[in-house]
């Protein structure tokens, strides 16, 4: 039994402490936005925020989030910030197959929290742990930039 905060609510996992956080989220709590692209910490499809930092949940043992706050796309998608990102990602054409998207959004959110007005190079670096095979990245970078420009006061 292990307690942590999941999308703003206290919760308790019944799974063993060495379980992968990704499995806990997907199987125990039915949160399907985080995806498994590699299971080895190389693609970022499973990325979530832990106390505001971008973590790959597939290589995070459950025990490591004890007492911490975990945010997945499910806990973020009703916010104003998300709505702006959704609009900008749509306009920029930043979503193709969509499999990398939940992780990308969390990476974008992690960046914008730290740096509401990032330079292009900073955006590249912030999403460099998130692989995308469809878009070639530039349209994602444009989307994050657009959100930063329009998001006055949100971040």
């Amino acid at each position: 039994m292990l307690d942590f905060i999941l999308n703003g609510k206290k919760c308790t996992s019944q799974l063993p402490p060495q379980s992968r956080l990704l499995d806990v989220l997907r199987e125990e709590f039915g949160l399907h936005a985080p995806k498994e692209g590699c299971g080895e910490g190389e693609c970022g499809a499973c990325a979530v925020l832990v106390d505001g930092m971008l973590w790959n949940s597939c290589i995070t043992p459950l025990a490591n989030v004890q007492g911490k706050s975990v945010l997945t796309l499910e806990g973020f998608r009703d916010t104003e910030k998300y709505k702006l990102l959704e609009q900008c990602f749509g306009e920029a054409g930043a979503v193709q197959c969509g499999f990398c998207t939940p992780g990308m959004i969390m990476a974008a959110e992690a960046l914008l929290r730290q740096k509401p007005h990032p330079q292009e190079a900073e955006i590249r670096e912030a999403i460099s742990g998130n692989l995308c095979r469809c878009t070639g990245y530039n349209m994602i970078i444009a989307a994050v930039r657009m959100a930063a420009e329009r998001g006055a006061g949100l971040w």
Partner: protein
Amino acid sequence: MEDISKAVERKDHRLKMSGRAEYTCDKRLEGMLYSAFVRSEIAHGRILDITLPDLPAGYVAVGGHDLYDNHLPVVTDEQPVFAVDEVCFVGEAILLLAGPDLATVRRLCRETKVTYEELPAVLTLDEATEMAAHYHYRKGDVEAAFAQAAQVVEETFTTGYQEQAYLEVQGMVAQWDAENGKMHVFGSLQAPYYVKNAVMRVLGLDDEHVRVVQQVTGGGFGGKEDYPSLIACQAAAAAKKAGAPVRVAYDRREDMTVTTKRHPSRLHYAAALDAQHRIIALKADICLDAGAYPGLSGVVLQRSVNVAAGVYKIEHLDVDGRAVITHTVPNGAFRGFGGPQSIFAMESLMNHLAAKVGMTPLAFRQMHVVQQGDDTVTGGKFHQYVPIPDLLAKVEEMSAYSRKYAAYSQPQTGRYRRGIGLSLFLHGCGFTGSAEKDILRARVILRKYADDTVEILASNVDIGQGLKTTFSKIVAAVLDLPLERIICPNPDTDRVPDSGPTVASRSLMIVGKLVERAARKLKAGWESGKEQEAVADYEAPELIPWDMDKFSGDAYPAYSWGVNVVELEEDRLTGMTKLLGVWGVFDVGKVIDNTVMLGQAEGGMLQGIGYGSMEKMEAAAGKIRQNSFTDYMIPTAMDTVPNQIAFIDNYYADGPFGAKGAGELTLLGGAPAYTAAVEQAAGKAYPNIPLTPERILAAEAK
């Protein structure tokens, strides 16, 4: 009417963006079992014995003997669904085990003992002798031309594997409805009817008793054209035997080890030049590594030989192509489908020939490019306008290619050297030859409901390329309806007619045209508030008939065209390169959605550059060595620069609103433009891709 190219938000944007899209891994069915494979550990051998551990209640094992027919239909049917007597590559499936607990299933697989008698294995293309396919065509009098040549130049090129690396691995869920004797299959796939036909044959079920539904699919790039049929059959066999739904979910290493990839190849070219430096004759000898079973290799090879001379007009030609069998993972479809190998070789050859005769790569190309009305290599015709001069003018304006080329041709000193490379390429849209007319005969239905919403019923899929959006825009434009009134759900074979697979850059051009025609019919008989239906069937355009035996005629109804320029800086100490600029100009007919098309170009160009530069995959003793994202590197956001991309409007009458095929074209030019840039920077010729820093350094050392 508003210009159809004006971008809209994608139909599935909000669903995918919010994480609510249901991919195969998100599918949950009551009582669903998890599964794992027992696979061959050797490249070639006879199976002498299989000993299973005791299976706990609720666990099943399926193999070839459980099937009505163990032959997987992929063009031909050499490949078994499960190996029974003989294994032919490392990772070939022997058994599928399924049960309620995945860890237990995996343990049971590990405890299964397979005893083999090892047989000699053919592991490389150079050793291979058995042919999966062979095509040969000639034009003119090649021998005489070579005999008269002022100069003959020969060169051998090689290309490596390329892994599709779709972010979502392969997966399938099968559910057996025992009461009605019906199999339901849900999966990540590009060709619902391929999967359906395979499951029907392997399980001995009729048309009414197999249903295939496409889940939201996390990328395909060809990798989900043929391969899903195999795992669908395996999952379905297990589901039937277990009497419970079964999920097959690969992990990344498994996916990279056992699924189809781009064919490694060896291409030998000989060019005969006259005294004016014109290529008068060309011989190409192309060899693709098919892997253990022929599968799609013959069809892939057709495209390799068809584009062997690239965008150039050469009077005398002799092109011979073989796909050979090795005891390695079978190769299959990947965006470009045999084209990227030939285009890389031909474009590199053009650069090397230009250097030999003292011309710039551009001027030498311009002497040879095809024009409208010219014959194709197989005696077809370029019926439509060939916009190569427009593409070149545009890319010159955007990139200042010629000025930079001249500047970087001056002697360079120091650690960092610059280069700029250009590639020209074409893509034959749709299937090679007469398959549309003779085999597929696609059909599309539009169904209008009483509330005047219109549903598109077709078996083509959106795998990220934006087809739901482009299809819907076509219908909305014809019927003058808002886009929200058009519904385009994922195909379910119980509901949609067979409009063919989503492959070969055919979905928008060929099926999209049917969508447009059906919409026009619907419009002609439109009665508001009434349920109505309109059907459109494929009608072949007037072409020079294709003869597969003679390999002659119009191989494709239309061609898309492109030019790429890559500018970079090479570090002579490390062999690393830094991109300085990437440009692409394309003719895909009329663009149906600017943003969707830009996405195709951005993604395709990066895959092409990855193919030429960093995506290295090899087999050692028949086993894929780079089977994770740690070892097989695909470009990250740090490996790209902002690209500059433009499109030329070149209306194509047989495509919807003038559109042609677009998805594959964008990958073709990256590798040759990249290597050309490195060659200029380094002052060396590099005939092998991927051109990794190690390869650059090895050549520097010489």
